[in-house]
């Protein structure tokens, strides 16, 4: 056990060393200019409803592609973090999420503002966003290299099932009330990826005889269309928003450090949840915020305040969405699969700048992951400082009327989709995706699975057919590799869970199993933590506050006590889970009614 601890500690020290080395690469003055400029731009984009992080990233990719790769990617990360944060300003003041990621922020942020506490609420959001990003960064630095190592084992069929799983889970989670629409969007994305010359035998598909179609549909033009042009249409389609002159004093928005102490559990939990949601392919910041918010409400002591101006709820939402940003970059780096829509742009930008993200990343460019960590770190610092200093000033952009802003955005969409490859075909792709995207969006089809589908379509197509070629069409090979089996089970699980009755039956059980497992792990950690503390105390011969001297035997009994409790709880929970179905079956046969089921995650929205 101690050896494992030692390993972990030495791994962490090693990671810190790599990060420190990576810092050395960003030592010029330009860096500061890029960081400040891009973060500011990000916050402004975030503040303006109708301009999203994804759109900002897609346009900035064009604006930075002549820069050095590191400078360009640094700017993108800063804009990413800035935009997700900036959206909270509008959510709190106007009850309009500045970006989709801030939808959960409105629930408690706006009520707080109506109570006259807009300033402090923005301070809370700043704290949450900053700490959320930091938690995400820590996971990025520690998990990504290990995950890349692990992903080296991934062969064709793992990627196949990962692609399917990505589309399914993204469709399911981004279109909560109607998963089939999410799936349709995802599969349409996969179908879009079929256009062009396929990668195995160079056969033309859906090119209709045009050479330009052979190259397929570019991700960046498609996304500029789906998130830029369609947003321009949507903004003009919706009712004219009232122009608000929001006045906030500088001193009001300074965060209260005591909140960190008061809400450290919420911050930690939301940070972890946000990161994990970010890692899941195609499920990003918005869902990260919702799930963190729901989890916070579930365990909160002030449950009734949620939705009526709870600082805790606001903190959870803002920590959750900000942690999802570094989280979404983890699969980009290690698998070449985007964790969210903005991360898809980050992926495209990395490819554009000659970095090849994927399982080979730690072999081909081992320092790159740590450079990304440093970029995010700069971004979070800049976001924190600029967010506090400039919020009152930045809110002035809200007075720009849409009639003035939208034509400029459209001009940027045109030049942004054109500039990278310099051909009009890409601009037409942008226009088509803009119009179709607007129609789909109005009919409640989520865009994130569509984008993920475009990215994954190529991987899916090639791995599907390649695995058949290698194994001569023997379907059994899908079952021979553990990772592919797990992914397969997850795929079918996702489908089953979307069917109402199945979900209502299985959902709570999965939650119970998860919480039992989490209980086991935390119990283990707690036992060892207290053991270490007690061993230290023993060595020093320290006395407990009540004067009783700690004996070795006492320490052991405490240690084993905690362990036994933990294991017993775990076993009890699992026995209940395993026996549960039989009990339910018995109830079904005898006709007795089951206890009413508790509410589940999704219902909390």
């Amino acid at each position: 056990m101690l050896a494992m601890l030692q390993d972990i500690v030495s791994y962490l020290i090693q990671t810190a060393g790599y990060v420190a080395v990576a810092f050395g690469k960003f030592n010029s003055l330009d860096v500061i200019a890029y960081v400040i400029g891009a973060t500011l731009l990000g916050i402004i984009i975030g503040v303006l409803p109708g301009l999203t992080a994804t759109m900002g990233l897609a346009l900035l990719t064009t604006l930075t592609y002549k820069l050095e790769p590191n400078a360009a990617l640094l700017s993108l990360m800063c804009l990413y973090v800035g935009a997700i944060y900036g959206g909270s300003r509008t959510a709190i003041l106007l009850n309009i999420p500045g970006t989709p990621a801030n939808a959960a922020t409105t629930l408690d942020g706006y009520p707080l503002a109506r109570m006259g506490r807009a300033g402090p609420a923005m301070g809370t959001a700043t704290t949450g966003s900053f700490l959320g990003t930091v938690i995400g960064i820590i996971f990025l630095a520690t998990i990504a290299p290990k995950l890349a190592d692990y992903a080296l084992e991934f062969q064709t069929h793992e990627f196949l099932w990962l692609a399917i799983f990505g589309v399914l889970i993204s469709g399911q989670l981004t279109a909560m009330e109607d998963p089939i629409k999410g799936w349709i969007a995802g599969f349409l994305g996969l179908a879009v990826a079929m256009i062009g010359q396929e990668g195995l035998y160079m056969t033309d598909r859906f090119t209709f005889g045009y050479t330009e179609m052979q190259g397929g549909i570019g991700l960046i033009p498609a996304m500029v269309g789906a998130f830029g042009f369609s947003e321009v249409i949507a903004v003009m389609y919706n009712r004219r928003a009232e122009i608000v002159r929001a006045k906030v004093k500088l001193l009001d928005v300074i965060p209260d450090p005591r909140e960190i102490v008061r809400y450290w559990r919420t911050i930690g939990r939301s940070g972890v949840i946000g990161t994990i949601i970010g890692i899941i392919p195609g499920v990003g910041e918005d869902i990260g915020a919702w799930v963190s918010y729901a989890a916070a409400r579930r365990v909160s002591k002030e449950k009734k305040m949620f939705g009526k101006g709870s600082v805790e709820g606001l903190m959870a939402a803002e920590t959750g969405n900000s942690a999802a940003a570094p989280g979404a970059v983890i699969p980009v780096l290690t698998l070449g699969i985007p964790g969210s829509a903005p991360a898809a742009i980050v992926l495209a930008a990395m490819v554009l700048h000659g970095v090849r993200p994927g399982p080979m990343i730690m072999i081909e460019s081992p320092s790159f992951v740590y450079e990304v960590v440093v970029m995010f770190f700069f971004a979070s610092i800049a976001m924190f400082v600029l967010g506090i200093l400039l919020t009152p000033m930045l809110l002035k952009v809200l007075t720009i009327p849409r009639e003035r802003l939208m034509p400029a955005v459209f001009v940027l969409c045109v030049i942004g989709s054109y500039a990278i490859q310099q051909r009009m075909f890409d601009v037409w792709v942008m226009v088509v995706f803009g119009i179709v995207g607007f129609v789909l969006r109005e009919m409640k089809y989520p865009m994130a699975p569509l984008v993920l589908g475009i990215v994954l379509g190529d991987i899916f197509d090639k791995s599907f057919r390649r695995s058949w070629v290698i194994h001569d069409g023997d379907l059994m090979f899908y079952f021979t590799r553990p990772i592919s089996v797990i992914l397969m089970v997850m795929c079918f699980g996702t489908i089953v869970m979307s069917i109402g009755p199945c979900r209502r039956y299985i959902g709570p059980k999965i939650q119970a199993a998860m919480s039992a497992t989490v209980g086991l792990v935390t119990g283990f950690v707690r036992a060892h933590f207290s053991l270490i503390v007690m061993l230290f105390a023993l060595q020093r011969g320290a006395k407990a506050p009540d004067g009783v001297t700690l004996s070795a035997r006492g320490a052991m009994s405490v240690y084993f006590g905690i362990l036994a409790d933990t294991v017993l709880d775990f076993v009890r929970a699992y026995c209940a889970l395993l026996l549960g179905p039989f009990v339910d079956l018995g109830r079904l046969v005898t006709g007795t009614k089951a206890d009413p089921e508790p509410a589940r995650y999704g219902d909390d929205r």
Partner: protein
Amino acid sequence: MPRADFLTGLVLLLVSAMLIGEGLTLPGAGGLIMKGGEPGRVPLFLGVVIATMAVVLIVRAISQNGHRLRGAARFDSENKQALGRALAVAVGGTLYVGLLGHNFLGSDTDYAVLTFGFVFIFIVIAEWKLAPEIAGRRWQTLDRRAPAAAARLTAIFGFVSPARAPYVWLFATAAFQAVVLSVIVSYVFEKQFFVQLP
């Protein structure tokens, strides 16, 4: 929504028919193409999956009477206006892109000029109805903050003061924004990024 779902379902069926069609006509195994690696395999699969989901969508819509298309399509004037605005943006944007780099009225279109035109026309059309109100409000603001400057402006430009001639004001500001935008974008992309503008 059921009606929209019904129509989407039909469109999706069309898309899946295309996918399946292409999947069946693409070359099969033989030559260098290995068995199992046929290029049409995945489009075929996607076509079938999308068709299945389309059928689910259609069946669900029919059960909610979504297939009855007649009669229910009523738009109130606000919806009509919104739809008009969206359509105008879509058509206008497409027109702008269509003209880029093409021969128009005898000469190739110039990016900067075309961009100026697009932005200018967009703003003028979008703000036309609001112009009197906007101009009036701006004037009030100026009057309140800097009465001296406002008075001087009235003395010189009295005949076109925003309050009296809001449309002149609209044209002037729209043209200003359009010029600034098109110059900056052309300059940055052509001279800084060496993009050959369309």
